[in-house]
């Protein structure tokens, strides 16, 4: 028993050290080297190489080499879970930690992303292209419609929120209607190429399937983002606590719809409360890692752009931000939409790793987890969020489950008693979270690149 505790602890430490190493290598800057009279900056190449090496380190651990596999299925499951949780928690940190909007709706968007992505690939592997066609064209058309309405309303002042919401809603509904008609028109043309579940056609295997998987995750993310746009537009104008309760309500509504997806919603393949089975398990370590790194890079770059500055300023003081000419409502909406986009992407990755979606996994009680993670890690700290996500999954799901399971079969349920207590202690002792708002390596503010002193002389 002691050995397994030690092993779990070592795993946690190794994983966190791995993350820190990854962010260090992603943020490495080197002096430009002069080759043949030209200055070449190798920083980017080193960063990319570092990411690739980091990918292969875990990939090697997951590969079965001569009957030996360093990371077993349980560990790889934890890794995938941690990656999706990182995406969800980063999105929430953008909404809450950086923009100060107390949102409990992240889990709902996560669920929307998961179900949307799963539906696309499930239909695709069962010889029905309508999922991809409808959702793909739908999100694109809805995006265009939202953009057009936004263009139209951008020059209007004192437009009531409800009016613009109605216009956006109308636009999206028209887009959805067109997409459904397109799906009816186009999918019969593609369906013969898909084959059936047992005998997949040319488009339902190999590279094409991977492409469809990639598209499904992307479309699911955008779908979640568009829903969050429509939902956030009216709701963000409420006060902070009311916003929290309304978003909590959103999660509950999504959960209710999931439970009744085969009765209220017309999706018999989701099987309602019994759970959706038969989702192709397409998430590999490559995809999980790819999407996680993409989310991290996108969020880091966003935060260090001028939009990110306005997001931060809205958190600090809305009135001051408005007086500096920042569109407060628009900034809130942007943060909310991007955060939900990340949650949707995470949901898509999760669905294809787990292969089985049950509404119970998207219950709002579990939906507090990302909130607790970002509070643990430190609001407004990406490093803290990522560390806390990995630590949370590996500690709570990995170590405590294993260790408590050895004591008695019922003991693992004690871990849910322990973590609220830890949370209480943390709040009493260190309310700003474990890491406060410190960042590490790549996630730090970008510094001015190295300058050659001789170079400066020439310019002057």
């Amino acid at each position: 028993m002691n050995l397994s505790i030690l092993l779990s602890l070592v795993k946690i430490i190794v994983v966190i050290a791995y993350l820190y190493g990854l962010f260090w290598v992603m943020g490495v800057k080197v002096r430009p080297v002069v080759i043949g009279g030209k200055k070449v900056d190798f920083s980017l190449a080193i960063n990319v190489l570092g990411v690739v090496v980091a990918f292969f380190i875990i990939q090697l651990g997951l590969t079965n080499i001569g009957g030996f596999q360093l990371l077993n299925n349980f560990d790889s499951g934890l890794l995938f879970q941690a990656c999706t949780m990182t995406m969800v928690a980063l999105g929430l940190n953008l909404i809450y930690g950086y923009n100060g909007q107390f949102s409990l709706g992240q889990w709902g968007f996560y669920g929307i992303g998961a179900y949307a992505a799963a539906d696309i690939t499930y239909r695709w592997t069962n010889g029905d292209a309508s999922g991809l066609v409808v959702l793909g064209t739908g999100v694109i058309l809805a995006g265009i419609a939202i953009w057009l309405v936004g263009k139209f309303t951008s020059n209007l002042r004192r437009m009531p929120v409800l009016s613009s919401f109605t216009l956006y809603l109308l636009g999206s509904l028209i887009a959805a209607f067109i997409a459904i008609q397109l799906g009816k028109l186009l999918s019969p043309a593609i369906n013969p190429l898909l084959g059936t579940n047992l005998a997949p056609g040319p488009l339902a295997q190999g590279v094409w399937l991977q492409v469809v998987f990639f598209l499904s995750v992307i479309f699911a993310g955008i779908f979640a983002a568009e829903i969050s746009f429509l939902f956030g537009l009216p709701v963000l104008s409420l006060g902070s606590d009311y916003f929290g309760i309304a978003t909590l309500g959103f999660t509950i509504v999504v959960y209710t719809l999931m439970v009744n997806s085969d009765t209220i919603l017309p999706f018999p393949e989701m099987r309602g409360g019994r759970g959706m089975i038969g989702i192709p398990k397409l998430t590999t370590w490559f995809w999980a890692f790819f999407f996680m790194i993409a989310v991290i890079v996108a969020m880091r770059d966003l935060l260090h752009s001028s939009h990110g500055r306005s997001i931060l300023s809205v958190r600090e003081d809305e009135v001051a931000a408005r007086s500096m000419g920042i569109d407060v409502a628009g900034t809130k909406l942007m943060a909310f939409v991007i955060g939900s986009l990340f949650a949707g992407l995470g949901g898509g990755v999760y669905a294809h790793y787990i292969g089985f979606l049950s509404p119970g996994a998207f219950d709002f009680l579990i939906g507090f987890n990302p909130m607790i993670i970002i509070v643990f890690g430190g609001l407004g700290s990406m490093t803290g969020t990522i560390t806390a996500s990995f630590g949370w999954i590996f500690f709570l799901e990995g170590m405590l489950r294993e260790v408590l399971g050895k004591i008695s079969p019922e003991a693992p349920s004690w871990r849910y008693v322990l973590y609220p207590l830890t949370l209480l202690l943390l709040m009493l002792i260190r309310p700003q979270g474990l890491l406060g708002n410190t960042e590490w390596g790549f996630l730090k503010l970008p510094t001015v690149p190295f300058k050659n002193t001789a170079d400066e002389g020439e310019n002057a």
Partner: protein
Amino acid sequence: MQLQTRPKKPPIIVRPNSFLAWIGRAFLILLALVVTYILAQNLIQKPLYFVTNVINGLQLGFVYALIALGYTMVYGIVKLINFAHGDVFMVGAFVSFFAIERFQLHQWPLKVFPSMNPFVAVAIGTITTILLSMVVCVLLAITIERVAYKPLRDAPRIAALITAIGVSFFLEYFGLLEFVFSARFIPYQRPFEVVTWYISDGIHRLENGQTPPDNSIVISNILLIIILCTLAVLVFLQFLVHKTKIGIAMRATSFDKPTARLMGIQVDQVISFTFAIGAAFAGLGGVLYAIAYPSIKTLMGVYPGLKAFVAAVLGGIGSIPGAFVGALIMGQAESMTASYISTPMRDAIAFTILILVLLVRPTGIFGEPEKEKA
């Protein structure tokens, strides 16, 4: 460098009565029309069924009101969504369950005084059970307040909110453990017999095993007890808040805490008292809810707690009549949704109504308009 920028089009100001401003209102009016149509159609087609639904909604709404009062008072004073309130409600139900099941507390008057009038004995026994639940809930709430919330009074609000979530989770997951309350549904034994009446042509008592005739409205004594208790609590609270010293202290604290402290009000005690009062009503609500829907489980407090908070927000948070009215609306909405739209959507309807009402009146129905931010 581009010095000249293209002249921007001057912004168009949307007047309150212009077409664009009316689009949003038209959306709301359309929604209201659809709801009215559904209700009116059902009222005309099956008026008795409609009245039955109203009665069911009343029963639910009055229980929600008891929980919402605690929410609205606590939020009014410390600006904290007390997520643990729903779990205090659950504890109240479970305390009465154990008191009845294990110790037969509801029968003590008959055991001590065998010659007592059975009706009085049952009444005293039930009241004792309820009082026990209320006392336990008060103790629990004061403990929570002292241990978890008080040290964080000057911390940022998020810390207190996260702590509230933590306390709520602790109560829930601790209760879910096998040796505490377990995760099962537990049948609840009522402390008194249910008496039902049906109204068709006059009021008749429904005998045991008899099914009510068609075209009749069924009313049970549980409904009457719930309504009586809630109204009594409301009157008591109005008296407490507006006529007594502690009530004045509560209002002063909710208005301006530092100044209240300067005026010699012991703010910490007032806040503890508020938590205690809220918890007492939650305990009462828990027992009544368990009596009305006699199947309890550990997570039973989650949804009623949330809906009661929604009710409090709907009525205007901090306002006692507001919480009551909001809870009645919640009860009706839930009952009507379950009957006429779809049963599972009844958990979702509360939040839809909340969003719509807050869009029109951002401070709730009875809420005072928000002060301008300095």
